[in-house]
């Protein structure tokens, strides 16, 4: 009986382990392929029927050097950076005060407000892109930085408000009251106590916003089309249309993912940092 249950237990464990390995493979394998293609020489791609090798015959960064020799590509990266940065700025400017108020005060109709915010994101992008583009065209903001930044800010705001709100909410009320008793007014309390303590959460929101804008395609495509201003995602789409070698596409994708990977690692550190530990026993 005991041996039987022990056997059942180890079978269960083995199944768990197997499912985890499979899940990880599913996630990692495409990333590996992407990276592999990005550094492949053309012989490792066009094998003429022979099986494609697991590791390129002659790993090379030629695709990258090719991309960086293209002056258009610099412009594209610059555009993506400008749009993402401005989106972060706008979202934080609008989102942080809202998050502060929603997180620290009793706001009448708070639930309805939050529901409204979240519902914006319940619509698929493809459904909301038409009215928003339509609206931006009316404002003569199509084919402008402002237009895309506006749209991306719209997409990011609910996240900024939600993440920021919980960052402000998690600060113990004692700290605020302590500061008040010590003579601090509203501004001092915000800038000296609440904001620094909410910073990790706000930084996470900012990074998230940056990434959202950085690899956003649908809105950028509708608002900018394939016009003068191009972003990395649009550039990828544009290149795809000319059926370029896979290694070039893979190289663009790698460059596109790079900030995602870097920031995700940073984000993880922030997420797990229990900065409020030690304030309140």
């Amino acid at each position, binding site marked *: 009986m005991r041996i039987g249950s022990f056997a059942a237990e180890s079978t269960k464990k083995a199944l768990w382990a197997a499912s985890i390995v499979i899940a990880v493979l599913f996630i990692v394998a495409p990333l590996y392929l992407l990276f592999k293609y990005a550094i492949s020489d053309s012989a490792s791609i066009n094998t003429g029927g022979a099986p494609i090798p697991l590791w390129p015959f002659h790993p090379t960064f030629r695709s990258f050097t090719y991309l960086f020799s293209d002056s258009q590509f610099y412009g594209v990266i610059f555009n993506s950076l400008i749009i993402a940065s401005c989106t972060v700025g706008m979202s934080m400017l609008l989102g942080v005060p809202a998050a502060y108020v929603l997180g620290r005060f009793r706001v009448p109709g708070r639930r309805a407000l939050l529901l409204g915010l979240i519902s914006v994101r319940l619509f698929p992008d493809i459904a909301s892109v038409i009215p928003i583009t339509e609206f931006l065209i009316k404002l003569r903001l199509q084919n402008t930085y402002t237009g895309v930044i506006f749209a991306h800010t719209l997409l990011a705001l609910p996240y900024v408000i939600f993440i920021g709100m919980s960052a402000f909410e998690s600060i113990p009320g004692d700290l605020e009251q302590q*500061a008040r008793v010590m003579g601090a007014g509203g501004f001092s309390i915000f800038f000296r106590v609440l904001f620094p303590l909410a910073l990790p959460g706000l930084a996470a929101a900012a990074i998230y916003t940056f990434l959202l804008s950085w690899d956003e395609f649908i809105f950028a495509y509708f608002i900018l089309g394939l016009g003068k201003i191009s972003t990395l995602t649009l550039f990828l789409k544009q290149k795809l249309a000319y059926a370029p070698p896979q290694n070039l596409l893979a190289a663009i994708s790698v460059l596109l993912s790079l900030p995602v990977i870097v920031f995700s690692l940073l984000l993880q550190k922030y997420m797990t940092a229990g900065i409020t530990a030690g304030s309140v026993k």
Partner: protein
Amino acid sequence: MAEVLLKAISKRLGSNQVIDSLSLDIKNGEFVTLLGPSGCGKTTLLRMIAGLEAIDKGDLVVGGRRYNDIPSQHRKLAMVFQSYALFPHMTVAQNIRFGLTINKTPAETISRKLAWALDLLRLAGLDDRMPRHLSGGQRQRVALARALVLDPEVLLLDEPLSNLDAALRETAMEELKRIHHQVGTTILYVTHNQVEAMTMSERIAILNAGRLEQFDTPRVVYDAPATRFAASFIGSPAMNFLDGTIEVREEDAGVDTALGFIKLDKDRFGRAQQMTGRKVTVGIRPQNIAYAEHHESKRYSDTTLRVSVELVETLGDRSLVVSRGENGAVLRFLITRDIEIEPQEMIEVFLDGRRVHLFDPQTNSNVFVS
């Protein structure tokens, strides 16, 4: 430093009367404890004084100024929260400097006061530590230092020792007393711990359900509890209570109870005689009951009772005996631990007549204290 006057202060939260027309006058430089069980309103009262809760009715006057409508940040007082509420993103020194920086104190004064506070609270060398790297006792001292550098008119302490372990709490109590002695600030100290209240305070305000039960020195509160609540809340183990009727028998005035006739001392004979026939609740502390066989001599006012031992609990240096009279009334008393008493044993005990307290069963107030 300032005196604190509470005049008929009331506070209602929903349908709950948290503070009910409470008045206190706290002298300049006095160490006063607000003592009571959880939910008695003591912390709310402290928060009202701090300006963190509005005062519904009554006046709060600190140092001659009516404080009711002065916002918290403009009141000249400091508070230590139960949680200590140290700013987790600031070092010890930054925490201590915080209030001074906010008040735009000259840098020179700030560094002088910082050094003074670090020294006073034995925090030297910890200036650059973050709160999360401090022990509980150190956090408590930083919180205190942060409050003291502000030279508050009144220092409000909300159960500052409740997060410390027993040994640390004792040293912290001594330290707090020393600091009060050195600094001389008026201190209002909230606790549910009677030992802290008895040890440190000059006067204790006992609160129950938003009302003031008694406000007096630790000695008076212990020796002459004004109400049955004050009697039961102060002292450990808890006081014995027995219902009875005041009677005069031969030379003695006393109370006829389920355990027998309990005599009062001669000093109270006259007043007790006038109350003959009155229903009362007798209160007597376990400390004021002696095991007859080991008591040197019985005093003239002592009552002898026969009880059977039910249970003996070891408390360390002493033991608590739970005994019952013939008709089941319970009496608890203390014996030194070298005395051997077995359950079921019939024994005699003496009750100290001077330490018998009488309470009105309706109003719960002490019939001899007015």
